[in-house]
């Protein structure tokens, strides 16, 4: 096989939506903190020092995300925060009033939210109701309004992600909140993909709860937070020491939390400039892809105001996306098919299916996602490799169809 591109040592990493490298500031804080001891719940000097780090971190995160410090509940990450939000809300709201059985969620939620919702439906008596999305992957407010108004008293909670992880489509969270508010229905939003990329102001959003995680914005894997208004009653998932408002137990990981705060700080302060830079890189990528493969289709909203600046989801008709991923990987270029895996077997994405795509296009699509380490060179490497990768992966689809 002729290889026009000897794989360089450093991969061209275009999978920042899966996880983005830690920013140097977060690495510095983490490594410095790992050398210290002290349980933030201990009463002696070491404990107090650790607690101080946690509380300063909480204050910084709250400030950068428009929340009050007391609204920040640290968790092990986005999955736990989503589970806490949706299960905690359903259990407490349903306990207060058994008529509240319905859980409304968008059809494009991440599995970390989708699966707990479906579990509540299957095991806990919730009546789970999907809200449809349009062809761009944006929640259909008319559909949501109908569902809410059919019987608002029966709704335990509504959850709508802030921005979709596969498509980058930004959801009308303000409108969802406005629809729910007159009925006193709490709204949660999974903002894992939005944080650090879109301006987020928890107080201004009117949300009751919002999920963020560190590793999507330059912090370490293994820490996240649920921002939850004080009045919100959440039944805990984890019982124990009651460290976080009695809503979440478990010894607080001061190093992870401090590093998380450093990453939030950096990503929010640099957000605007970075968004502009990434939007330009994305344009270079997308224009190049379409020039080389004219039949390629860029999915999701065309309007930059309705999508994340760093995500490009592209369908290459008649092309095998799994093969493209592997061929790119062999050339040191790392991208994603954007779909969940079972035993490494890609399953057709529920997001694309909800948007009206068929399995065939779902299996012909790749997600390219940029981030703080991305440079023009990364994009150029994708474009240089694309012709051969595309030709071979198209042939791979053709032999399968035989």
């Amino acid at each position, binding site marked *: *096989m002729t290889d026009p591109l000897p794989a360089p040592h450093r991969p061209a990493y275009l999978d920042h939506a899966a996880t983005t490298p830690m920013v140097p500031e977060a690495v510095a804080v983490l490594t410095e903190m790992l050398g210290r001891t002290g349980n933030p719940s201990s009463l002696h000097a070491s404990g107090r020092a650790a607690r101080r780090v946690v509380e300063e971190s909480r204050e910084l995160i709250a400030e950068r995300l428009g929340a009050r410090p007391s609204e920040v509940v640290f968790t092990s990450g986005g999955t736990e925060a989503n589970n806490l939000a949706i299960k905690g809300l359903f259990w407490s709201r349903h306990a207060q009033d058994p008529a509240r059985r319905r859980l409304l969620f968008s059809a494009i939620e991440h599995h970390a939210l989708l699966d707990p919702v479906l579990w509540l439906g299957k095991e806990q008596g919730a009546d789970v109701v999907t809200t449809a999305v349009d062809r761009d992957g944006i929640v259909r407010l008319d559909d949501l309004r109908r569902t809410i108004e059919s019987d608002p008293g029966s709704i335990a909670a509504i959850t709508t992600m802030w921005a979709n992880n596969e498509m980058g489509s930004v959801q009308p969270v303000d409108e969802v909140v406005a629809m729910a508010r007159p009925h006193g229905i709490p709204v949660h939003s999974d903002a894992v993909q939005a944080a650090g990329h879109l301006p987020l102001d928890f107080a201004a959003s009117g949300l009751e709860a919002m999920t963020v995680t560190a590793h999507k914005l330059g912090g370490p894997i293994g820490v996240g937070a649920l921002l939850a208004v004080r009045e919100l009653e959440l039944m805990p998932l984890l019982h124990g020491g009651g460290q976080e408002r009695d809503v979440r137990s478990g010894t607080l990981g001061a190093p992870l939390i401090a590093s998380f705060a450093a990453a939030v700080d950096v990503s929010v302060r640099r957000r605007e400039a970075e968004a502009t830079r990434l939007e330009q890189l994305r344009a270079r990528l997308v224009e190049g892809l379409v020039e080389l493969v004219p039949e390629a289709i860029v999915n999701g909203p065309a309007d930059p105001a309705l999508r994340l600046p760093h995500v490009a989801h592209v369908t290459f008709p008649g092309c095998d996306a*799994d*093969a493209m991923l*592997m*061929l790119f*990987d*062999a050339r040191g270029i790392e991208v994603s098919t954007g779909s969940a*895996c*079972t*035993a*490494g*077997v*890609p399953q057709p994405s529920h997001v694309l299916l909800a948007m009206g795509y068929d399995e065939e296009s779902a299996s012909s699509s790749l997600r390219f996602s940029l981030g703080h380490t991305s440079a023009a060179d990364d994009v150029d490497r994708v474009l240089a490799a694309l012709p051969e990768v595309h030709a*071979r*992966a198209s*042939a*791979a689809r*053709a*032999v*399968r169809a*035989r």
Partner: protein
Amino acid sequence: MRLIAAMSGGVDSAVAAARAVEAGHEVTGVHLALSRNPKSYRSGARGCCSIEDSNDARRAADTIGIPFYVWDMSEEFADTVVDDFIAEYEAGRTPNPCLRCNEKIKFAAVLDRALVLGFDGVVTGHYAQVRENAAGLVEMHRAVDMAKDQSYVLGVLTQDQLRRSHFPLGGSTKPDVRREAEARGLQVATKPDSHDICFVADGDNAGWLAEKIGPRPGTVVDEAGTVLREHDGAYAYTIGQRRGLRLGVPADDGKPRFVLDIEPVSGTVTVGPREHLLVDALDGIKPLWCTGAPTGPLDCTVQLRAHGAEHRAQVRVDDGRVHVELLDPAEGIAPGQACVVYDGTRVVGSATISGTRRRVESPA
């Protein structure tokens, strides 16, 4: 060369991949996902479809230091192996799904995909040997370890497929392979071998088929046509089967009875004495010749089932049909099984058995 190593998660394919790397090839490990709904944990049957096997393959690739991917071949597998397995049993034949998988998946769908993606061939952990002869053709020979020899289930490979196939374990014995896996630090060194059909849980062939095909009532008769019992599906029977017939009354002569014949349309299963199982001639269809068809009558040996005995035979090819006269009669041979033809250790080719002729013709 650039090779795809098909890694099942077992010890053989892991050592094969490691040896290919050591031989200087650029190897990429691939685990084939053959089931749409892989089971999280292994059930009784040791198969190729569990998440645990996929993880074992991944860990082996890590240890060897090669890239690793899972290729979803579940659709192809369902269409060409599983559906065929069901259809063959429905038609009263006895298929070999492993052979079919080699023919249609591992050395066809996987190899074709590998070639278009820029690879030169496929390496597997099968125990068989390939080598080029003086005429420049690639021959396949039995493995050195006769107890593990898998040339039978590879007897369907064509010259083009053999040319792209690498079997690094053909010259080794299984104990040596296990020792080598241990020495290489492969976690699967002590993992048990798989035996059952990978997509049939717990080796319960009849139960699995009953679930897929549903009830097809019929009768079990003796060679005189006397009905001995009723059954729910002839597919639960295999020619040569003795156990589990549950005939209630013993034969007149008190000797054990065996399944002699299965007639799928009426669902009639005929039983009789062991000596009526003996056949001394076979007809075969769909022949495949590794290095070309025999030009005249060929004195050779044939193997009629996986790990079965060799029978001396003479093979003639006539207009795409294969006629096999057995010098050593064989017992319990069912249509659908493969007849693999050997010249010494060399695989000449194979055919699917379409009919048998009995030394002692049954009166039925």
